[in-house]
């Protein structure tokens, strides 16, 4: 397929006969829908292209570090090769002391392959739309049936809080939590039709800035990034954000029940204040 996108595909994909559909051009990377190793395995190819505005030495250093860091985190969260058993199942009730290996299987994409020199990584393909698109869709419908949409939104937000809680309980902070980095995968029984259904599994993607941490500070900053990104992108729904935090600290599926979740949320108040009280000169 001789499209212009071919020129941005790294080896070995630039010689491949498979189809590559450009899905997104994020700040960090290009995302293609394609297949990997077999035509029946749909995959997401994430390419980190050269940034010509950065010094080449800096660019190479950053690209390599970020691909490796992202892959390591995903592999840990999916528990590849450590715990046997089918993928795609939510791991319920992670045991205490289980330091998160495999704790997010089904909630993050599986890694299929990568090359840090060429700047690419392939993960399994997640069907569905981003949470950002889902909320925008619901926003448009809101005029028609106000209360019902708000309730549906709250369900979505609770799911968001729980999945972030699970992530933190696994000892990982995402580093770039936004509604563009969350996928809403419809459950088999529902169809995401005209009504803009907000129910479904939430998966986290784009772990390019993720780090492994258990600290309250890092968790609070993670929540703060999400809070601000949410408010900036969805100003009409901003007031509902508390639902996310509540589900994070207390939700059924959240791994952060008990003190850890509440501690992080309280720390979030400090982080918020920091922004406000910061001295601004000139």
């Amino acid at each position: 397929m001789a499209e212009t996108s071919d020129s941005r595909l790294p080896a070995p994909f630039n010689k491949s006969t498979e189809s590559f559909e450009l899905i997104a051009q994020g700040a960090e990377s290009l995302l293609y829908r394609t297949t990997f190793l077999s035509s029946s395995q749909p995959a997401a190819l994430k390419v980190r292209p050269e940034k010509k505005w950065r010094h080449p030495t800096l660019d190479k250093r950053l690209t390599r570090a970020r691909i490796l860091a992202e892959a390591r985190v995903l592999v840990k969260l999916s528990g590849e090769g450590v715990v046997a058993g089918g993928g795609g199942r939510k791991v319920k009730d992670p045991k205490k002391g289980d330091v998160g290996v495999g704790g997010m299987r089904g909630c993050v994409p599986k890694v299929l392959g990568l090359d840090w020199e060429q700047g690419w990584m392939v993960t399994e393909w997640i069907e569905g739309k981003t949470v950002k698109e889902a909320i925008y869709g619901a926003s448009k419908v809101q005029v028609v049936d106000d209360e019902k949409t708000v309730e549906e939104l709250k369900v979505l937000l609770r799911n968001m809080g729980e999945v972030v809680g699970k992530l933190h309980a696994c000892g990982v902070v995402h580093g770039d939590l936004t509604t563009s980095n969350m996928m809403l995968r419809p459950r088999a029984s529902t169809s995401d039709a005209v009504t803009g259904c907000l129910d479904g599994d939430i998966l986290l993607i784009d772990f390019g800035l993720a780090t492994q941490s258990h600290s309250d500070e890092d968790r609070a900053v993670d929540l703060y990034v999400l809070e601000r990104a949410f408010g900036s992108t969805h100003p009409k729904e901003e007031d509902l954000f508390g639902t996310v935090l509540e589900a994070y600290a207390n939700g059924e599926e959240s791994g952060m029940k008990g003190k850890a979740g509440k501690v992080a949320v309280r720390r979030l108040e400090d982080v918020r204040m920091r922004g406000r009280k910061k001295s601004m000169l000139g």
Partner: protein
Amino acid sequence: MPIAIGLEGSANKLGVGIILHPSSSTPSSPHDSAHSEDEAFTSKPTSPPVQILANLRHTFVSPPGTGFLPKDTAAHHRRWVVRLTKQALKQARIQLEDVDCICYTKGPGMGAPLGAVAIAARTLSQLWDKPLIGVNHCVGHIEMGRAITGAENPVVLYVSGGNTQVIAYSAQRYRIFGEALDIAVGNCLDRFARVLNISNDPAPGYNIEQLAKDGKCLLELPYAVKGMDVSFSGILARVEELARRLTTTTSTNPWLDPDTGLDITKSDLCFTLQETVFAMLVEITERAMAHVGAQQVLIVGGVGCNERLQQMMGIMASERGGSVYATDERFCIDNGIMIAHAGLLAHGKGFETKLEESTFTQRFRTDEVLVNWRD
């Protein structure tokens, strides 16, 4: 036709500006050349046209190796404000009756200098019986940038000695998407300049930029981007360490670039610092653009004068099919005209700061201002 006087002094630049907003019925015409070095400017048609009647500034420059302290800066502003205001009025050739309001920087910034300017504003307001308008410094930069460049709805990178923010407009607020978590990028550059005794005239950042043009070796500095935010204190600590090492380098104790075998110079350090911190700024701006779906970037604030930063941002923007907008030093660097402009926009919507409320504050978030002159 509304005219406003704007007074700015949140850091070491004292600015006095006089602006005219032609009403929509009067055709905007180029000003005659008898006026100040800033010829009146009719901006691109997408934003309300403005006419700059005067834009004067005087900078308090401290000796190399030092920064400017609040007390001395305030004294400088007190010494210059009357002179600058008189000069501005003369250049603008307006009558006092034509002036609609006195705008001043309410904040954020350094306390004592802000106070000196606030007192001047209050004095003028009472002397001439004109309403006062307290303006947010950051909003001033943004509105002036929009007016001069004609950018419709860009992501704004506001970078100066005191501020580093990535801003996007949404629902009558300038929302902060990302910012520096500790010190501003300009502060990082200025403090680095002190260790190497780089001159503060006209500004330390300007001299770093000139030195960096001769730099070739990229040393390693930490790269601290945290989501949409950035952090500079770690980078500053490391680059100061490198600067101190440079001062102890001699012919018997050399410091060589491992690739070329040449001596590491001041220029290499300047180059390294600029490439690193600017890459971080372009990165967070890119993130915001991707998230919001914007094509345009507007750079405002003193550090926005830097041509390397503008160049890097331009490459990033064009790779995304967008463009970058920037202004020259008349408007990038703190000035009075931006305060007059933003103040007049607010005044047009009925905003006024009563005398009892004409305070100033060191901390004033950009998103606290209700931008009701936009939809």
